C-alpha cells in the first residue's frame, strides 16, 4: 500500500472520494501532477482552515497600522483577531498605531433583530472622536450579511460626514471556502478605493511595493532593510507594518514584488492592468531564494550600478551569515521536515530548509489554489464553482493618468524567459519524488503523515503544534514563529536555523520516544484506529 492509500484508508467512501484528489504522492517531477484545491472543506474532519473574515480582517487588513478597522458583529470575531497574528508595526510619522487595538460593534440580540446599521454609525462616530483616524475600515461577520445591514452605505455616510476615508468589506465568514475568499475581497476593495488615491511620488530611481508580506515576526523589516541597503525605495508594503497613507501611493512604484502569491496576486495583476506596473514573484525566505529574488529585481531594472550594488550587498550579507549557516547546516543536515502552512510558506520554507540540508518530505497548504501548487499556467484550466463564483472577479481598465509601462513589449517577453516575471511555477515542481503533497490537511491526516514520514521537525501552526508535540515530534510555528523571527532574508535565515537547531536539540526530546521511532516500518492498520 502506498503512503497516500494508507492515509485515505480509514475514510468513509464519501470522504475518500473527496480527499483522494487532495492528496498527491509525487512520482515523476517532470510529469506535472494535478491536485484538487480551493474546494469546500469536509465538515467534521477538523480542518485547519479559517473563514472569509479571517482572511480579510485577520490577514490582509489587520496589519494596517493607521486604520481603525471595526469588526461589525457580535464580540467573538473581533476578540479572536486581536493581536493573534503577531504582526509587528511601528507607528509612522502621524504617531498612529492601532494594531494593538480591537474594535467591535459588539452586536447584541436586538441589533440582530432590528438591524445594526445605527449602532455601526454610532460606533464610527465614537471612533472618529476618540482616535481621529484618517481611514476607517468596516469588516462584517456572518450575521451582518444575513440581516442585510448595508455597511457600504454606512461607509459612504462616514466619508460624507467626517471627510475621511472609509471602506467596507462584506467578508462574512461563510463566504468562499476558506480565508482565501477574504484575501480576494480585501484585494478588490483596496484596489477600488485606496490604491491610486495618493500623489506622493517616489524620491528615488528604483521603487517597489512589497505585496503579501505581513511582517510576522519582523520579516518585512528584514526584507526592507536589504532592499533599502541596495538602494530601492519601498513605497508600500501590503500590509505588514503597512499603512493607508503608504498604500494609497502604491501606484507610483516601478515594480511590484509578490511574496505571498496566494493572498495578494489579485492586486499585482490588477495593478498591471490599471497602472502598467509589472510584478515579479520574489521569495525572501531562504538564502538562495533571497539572492535569486534580488538578482531578478536587478535584472528587471537592468541598471549597471544597481546590479553592482546588488552584488556588493549580496556578497557582504552572505559573508556575514556564512559561518552561522555552515554551523547550523552541520547540525541539521540530513533531517526531514514536514511543512503545513497557509498558502505560500510551505513552498517558501522548503528553500530555506534546503539551504540547511533539510529535506521536505511532506508539504501542504491550508487554503491555496491549484496555481500555488502547480504553477500559474494552470489558471485557465481551473473551473469556477459555486463558491468561487460568489467572490467578485474585479475587472480594471488602464488608468489614463497613471498608466505607464517601464519595459517595452519585446523587452518584457525577453526578460520573462529569464526571470519569474509575472510567473509562478508553484510548489510541486520543487518537491522530490516520493514526497506527498496534501491540500487542506486535517488533524487525522497530520497524525498519519507524521507516522508515515517520520519527519524530525514539523512546521505548522498553533492548532496542530500540540498534536505534533504529543506525538513526540519537534514543532515550530510558521504562522506566527512562536515569539521568534524574523526568518526572512539573510539575518532571518540564521534565526530560523538557530530556532530549528534549538528545537531538535531540546533535552526533553531525550525522554520522549515516539512509538514509531522504535518500530522500523509500519504495516497494516494505522495505530489507534481500530
Amino acid at each position: 500500500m502506498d503512503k497516500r492509500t494508507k492515509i485515505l484508508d480509514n475514510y468513509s467512501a464519501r470522504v475518500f472520494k473527496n480527499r483522494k484528489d487532495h492528496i498527491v504522492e509525487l512520482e515523476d517531477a517532470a510529469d506535472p501532477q494535478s491536485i484538487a484545491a480551493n474546494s469546500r472543506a469536509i465538515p467534521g474532519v477538523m480542518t485547519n482552515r479559517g473563514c472569509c473574515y479571517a482572511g480579510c480582517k485577520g490577514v490582509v487588513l489587520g496589519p494596517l497600522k493607521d486604520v481603525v478597522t471595526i469588526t461589525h458583529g457580535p464580540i467573538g470575531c473581533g476578540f479572536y483577531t486581536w493581536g493573534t497574528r503577531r504582526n509587528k508595526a511601528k507607528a509612522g510619522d502621524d504617531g498612529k498605531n492601532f494594531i494593538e487595538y480591537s474594535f467591535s460593534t459588539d452586536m447584541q440580540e436586538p441589533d440582530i433583530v432590528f438591524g445594526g446599521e445605527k449602532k455601526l454609525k454610532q460606533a464610527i462616530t465614537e471612533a472618529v472622536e476618540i482616535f481621529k483616524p484618517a481611514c476607517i475600515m468596516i469588516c462584517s461577520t456572518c450575521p451582518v450579511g444575513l440581516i442585510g445591514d448595508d455597511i457600504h452605505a454606512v461607509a459612504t455616510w462616514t466619508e460624507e460626514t467626517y471627510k475621511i476615508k472609509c471602506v467596507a468589506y462584506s467578508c462574512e465568514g461563510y463566504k468562499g471556502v476558506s480565508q482565501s475568499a477574504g484575501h480576494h475581497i480585501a484585494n478588490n476593495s483596496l484596489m477600488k478605493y485606496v490604491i491610486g488615491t495618493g500623489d506622493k511620488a517616489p524620491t528615488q530611481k528604483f521603487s517597489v511595493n512589497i505585496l503579501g508580506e505581513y511582517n510576522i515576526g519582523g520579516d518585512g523589516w528584514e526584507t526592507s532593510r536589504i532592499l533599502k541597503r541596495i538602494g530601492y525605495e519601498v513605497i508600500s508594503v501590503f500590509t505588514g507594518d503597512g499603512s493607508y497613507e503608504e498604500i494609497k501611493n502604491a501606484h507610483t512604484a516601478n515594480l511590484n514584488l509578490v511574496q505571498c502569491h496566494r493572498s495578494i496576486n489579485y492586486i499585482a495583476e490588477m495593478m498591471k492592468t490599471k497602472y502598467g506596473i509589472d510584478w515579479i514573484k520574489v521569495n525572501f525566505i531562504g538564502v538562495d531564494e533571497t539572492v535569486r529574488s534580488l538578482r531578478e529585481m536587478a535584472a528587471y531594472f537592468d541598471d549597471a550600478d544597481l546590479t553592482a550594488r546588488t552584488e556588493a550587498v549580496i556578497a557582504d550579507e552572505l559573508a556575514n551569515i556564512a559561518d552561522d549557516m555552515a554551523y547550523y547546516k552541520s547540525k541539521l543536515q540530513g533531517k526531514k521536515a514536514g511543512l503545513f502552512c497557509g498558502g505560500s510558506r510551505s513552498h517558501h520554507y522548503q528553500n530555506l530548509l534546503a539551504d540547511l540540508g533539510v529535506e521536505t518530505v511532506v508539504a501542504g497548504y491550508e487554503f491555496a489554489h491549484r496555481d500555488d501548487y502547480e504553477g500559474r499556467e494552470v489558471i485557465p484550466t481551473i473551473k469556477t464553482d459555486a463558491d468561487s463564483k460568489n467572490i467578485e472577479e474585479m475587472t480594471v481598465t488602464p488608468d489614463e493618468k497613471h498608466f505607464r509601462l517601464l519595459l517595452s513589449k519585446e523587452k518584457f517577453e525577453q526578460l520573462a524567459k529569464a526571470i519569474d516575471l509575472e510567473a509562478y511555477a508553484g510548489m510541486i515542481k520543487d518537491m522530490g519524488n516520493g514526497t506527498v503533497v496534501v491540500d487542506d490537511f486535517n488533524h487525522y491526516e497530520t497524525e498519519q503523515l507524521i507516522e508515515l514520514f517520520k519527519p524530525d521537525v514539523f512546521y505548522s501552526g498553533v492548532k496542530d503544534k500540540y498534536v505534533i508535540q504529543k506525538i513526540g515530534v519537534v514543532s515550530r510555528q510558521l504562522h506566527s514563529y512562536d515569539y521568534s523571527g524574523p526568518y526572512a532574508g539573510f539575518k532571518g535565515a540564521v534565526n530560523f536555523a538557530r530556532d530549528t537547531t534549538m528545537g531538535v536539540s531540546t533535552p526533553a526530546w531525550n525522554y520522549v520516544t515516539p512509538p514509531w521511532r522504535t518500530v522500523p516500518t509500519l504495516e497494516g492498520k494505522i495505530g489507534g484506529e481500530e
Partner: protein
Amino acid sequence: MGINFTNLNVNPCKMCTPMGSVTALYGIKKCMSILHGSQGCSTYIRRHMATHYNEPVDIASSSLTEEGTVFGGASNLIKGLENLIRLYNPEVIGVSTTCLAETIGEDIKAIIKNFYMANPDCKVKIIPVSTAGYAGTQYEGFFKALQAVVANVEMTTEKNNKINIITGLISPADTRYLKQLLDGLGVSYVLLPDLAENLDGVHVDVYNRLPSEGTSLEEISQMAGAKFTIELSTFVSDDISPAKYLEEHYGVPYKRMDLPVGLQATDAFIKQIVELGGVISPELTKERGRYLDAMVDSHKYNALGRATVFGEPDFVKAIINLCCENGIVPVVSATGAACSNFQAKIEAPIKKVAAGLFVENYAMVDDADFETIEQLTLDLKANVMIGNSDARRISEKHSIDLVRCAFPIHDRVGGQRIQMIGYAGSLQLLDRISNTLLGAKESTFREELYEKYYTGSDKKSPQAIHEVTKMNAQEIIAQKTATHPCYNCGAGQYARIHLPIAPKCNVQCNYCVRKYDCPNESRPGVTTEILDPEQAFQKYVIVKEKMPNLKVVGIAGPGDSLANFEQTKETLTLIKEYDPEVTFCLSTNGLMLPLYAQDLIDLGVTHVTVTLNAIDPKIGAKIYKYVDYMGVRYTGESGAGILIGNQLTGLKYLTSRGIICKVNTVMLKGVNDDHIETVVKKVKELGCEITNIMQLIPVAGSAFEDMPLVNNKEITAMRKQCEVHIKQMYHCKQCRADAIGTLGNDVSIEYRGCTAPSSTQEKTLEAKRFAVATKSGMLVDQHFGHASEFYIYESDGKTAKFIERRNVEKYCTGVEHCEDKASKIDNILTAVKDCHSVLALRIGDSPSKRLQDMGIGIVVTYDRIEDAVKKAANQ
C-alpha cells in the same frame, strides 16, 4: 453602574458563548464538539484554547458556506457528525450553534433527530447547545452547555447519596484540587464538568486524539438521583442553570455559592459539604491554618494593594472575596458581560475593606471594555491588575503589574495549572499577588522614602501642593514631549528655535574647539552670531510670527547654557511672559546643574539634555581637559569626578520632579565605547527618558582631531545594544546652536542677522574651483556621500561664479550603507578631481581621506553656497 454608553467596544473584555460551551464540553468524558457555522469560529476558538492550555484542542466545524445560508446547513451538520464519529469514535458529541446558525434559524434538534433516523445504530449521545454569539458571554455559554448536558442525558431517578458539584470555568489544576478536597471530605459526588485531565494532558507514548477523561455519561445520569446540588457560580441565571434544571425536573435541592476562593468562601463551601455528611480531616484543618497564617504574615504588604479585577463575573467575585479578606482594595471591578446585578453582588466586601483602608473611591462596572478598564485603573490609581493576559497592553503601557490567573493567558505558560481554589489554591494566588506588590515596592520604596523625607523635608508645603497638581503637570509635560521634535520621532512637523545666547563654557572637552563651537552636542556647525537676551527675545517673536508651528525654544550654547545662567534666565523669562505655552528645552554639560536645577524648573524648563560621556572619572579624565568649577580649574580625574558627580545629581533632581531628561553621549573609539552601555544603564536608573549616542565629529585643532571615527553601523549597533535599557534617539540631526525650523529643514539662514547686523570680510585672491554638495541649489546642505550631483563654482574670494552641474551616481544610500567601499566613490572623486576643495554639510571618514590624498581640501559647513565658496577661497 453600567457605564457602557458607547457603541464601539475598544478591546473587548469578553468572549462569545460558543467558546464557553466547547470549554465546558471538554470536561465530559469521550466528548467531541462540533460548531454549527462557518469554520472560522472553531478555528479561532481552537487557536485561543490551544495557546492557553498548551494542549491539542479539537473542535470540529460543519463548515457552512454561502449555500448553507440559503438552503440551510442540515446536510453539512449531518456529514460533520458522521465524520467526527468515524475519525474520533466519541461517546458524546456536543453541537453548539453560532451566530450564523442562530441567525438563519437552524433547527438543531430536528437535524439531530434526522441523523439518528439515518443512522439507527449510532450509540453516540448528541447534545444540542444553543449558543448565539450575540447572546451572552463565555460563562453563559459554559452553563448553557452544562444545562444542555443534564437536560439531554437519560437520567436514573433512583436516589443515591451523591452530591452534584457544578462549577463554572476553573483550571484543570483547580479541578484536580477540588476533587481531592471532596475525596478528603469523604463524600460521594458527581463533578460537572471535570476539566482535570483533558486540557492538561500528560505526555504518554501513544497519543490518543479523543479526550478520554472527564465526567462520564454514567455519572451524569446519576445527577437526577443526587441528594443535593451545589452550583459554584454567583451569577448564573435560573434559565441557564443546570442546578435549577435538576431541581425543577427531578426535585434535587440546590444551593448556589461563590467559587471557594479565599477563606470565607472556602469555609462556606466546606461547611455546606459537612452539612451533607463530609468530615473535615486534620490535614484540611492544617491547610486552612496555613492559609490563615499567610494572610497574617503578608497583611502589611497587601494593605497597600489597590487592585483592578476584571474578567467573567464569577471569577471577578471570587477574586474580590480573596482580595477583600486580605486588605487588598479592589478599586476597579469590571466584567465584560452585561450583568445587571453585578454591583449588588460584589459591593458589600469592597465597601467594607475600602472604609477600613481609607479608600474613598472604587468602581464596579459591567459591560466594560478594556478602554474603560484602563481609564478607571489610572483614575483610581490601581497598583496591580488581576485577570487574564488581555490586560498586558495596559500593564506595559502604564507599568502596572498584571497577575495572570484567568483564561485566556497568551503570553505566559501554565494557564492550565493556575490555582486559586480552596485554602491551598487561595494561598498560591495570594502569594502571587503579594509578591507582585512586593516586587514593585522593592524597586521603588527607597527612592520614595528618600524623596519624601530627606530631599523634600525643607519644602514640605510646596511638595504637598506639588503632589496635588502632579497629575496636571505631568500631563502638560507629556503633551509638550509629544510636540517636541527631538523627543518624539513623530513630532517632526513641529519646529524649534535654538537661541545662541550662551558663549561661555566651563568645561574643555577634548573633541571641542572653543571658537563658538558647541561643547555639548558636538554640532558640526557653529553659530554666526551671539545674541543678548533682548535680541534673542526679538528673534523669537519674529520667527514665531512666521512659523506658527514653532513649539520649542532651546538654549544650546554655543557655550554652556548654565555657564551663562543670567542670560539664560533673562531670555527664558522674557519669552515666557510673551508666550506662556512655549516648551523650554535646554542643553548643558551638567556641571552647574545641581545649583540651577530648581531655578530651571521654576523658569518652566521641561526638557533638559545633558551631555554625559562617562560615569567613571578614569574615563572622564581622558575626555575632559579641564573643568572650571567655583573659581578653580580642575584637571584629570578630579575634574572629571566633579563633573560626573554633578551631572548625575542634577539629572536625578530633575527626573524626580518630572522633568524629561535626555542624555547625549559622544561615542569615542577606544575611550568610552566599551563604557557607553554602563552610562546608559545608569541614566536609565536615574529616570532619564532617552539617550542619544552620537558620532564624534572631529574638529580640526581639537585634541581628538585624529581620532578614528565610529561609523554609522557601529553607532547603530551601539544604539541597538542600549535600546534594551532605554529608548534611543535615532533621528538626531546634530543641530546647530542657532538652528531654526523643523528637524528636517533648517531655515536659520533666513533669520540670520535679523536682529543685529553681521559682517563678512572679503579678500581678493586668484580664482579657484569648488565642488559643492547641495540639495537645494542654494545652500551647502548635503552630505558628501548623499550627493547625486555637485555644483561647481569658481571664486577669487570676492565673487563666486557658478560654472556647471556635474552628475555622479549616489554611492551612499543610507545608514546601513555608508561604509560600503563601493567602487562608486571613484566616480565622485573623478567628478571633483579638478577642484581646489569640496564643500559639504558632512563627509564620511573614508572619502575625506581619499580626498586629502588627492590634495583636495574639504570644507564642512552649512551656509549659502556663494558665501561658503567665498569664505573657502579666502582660507
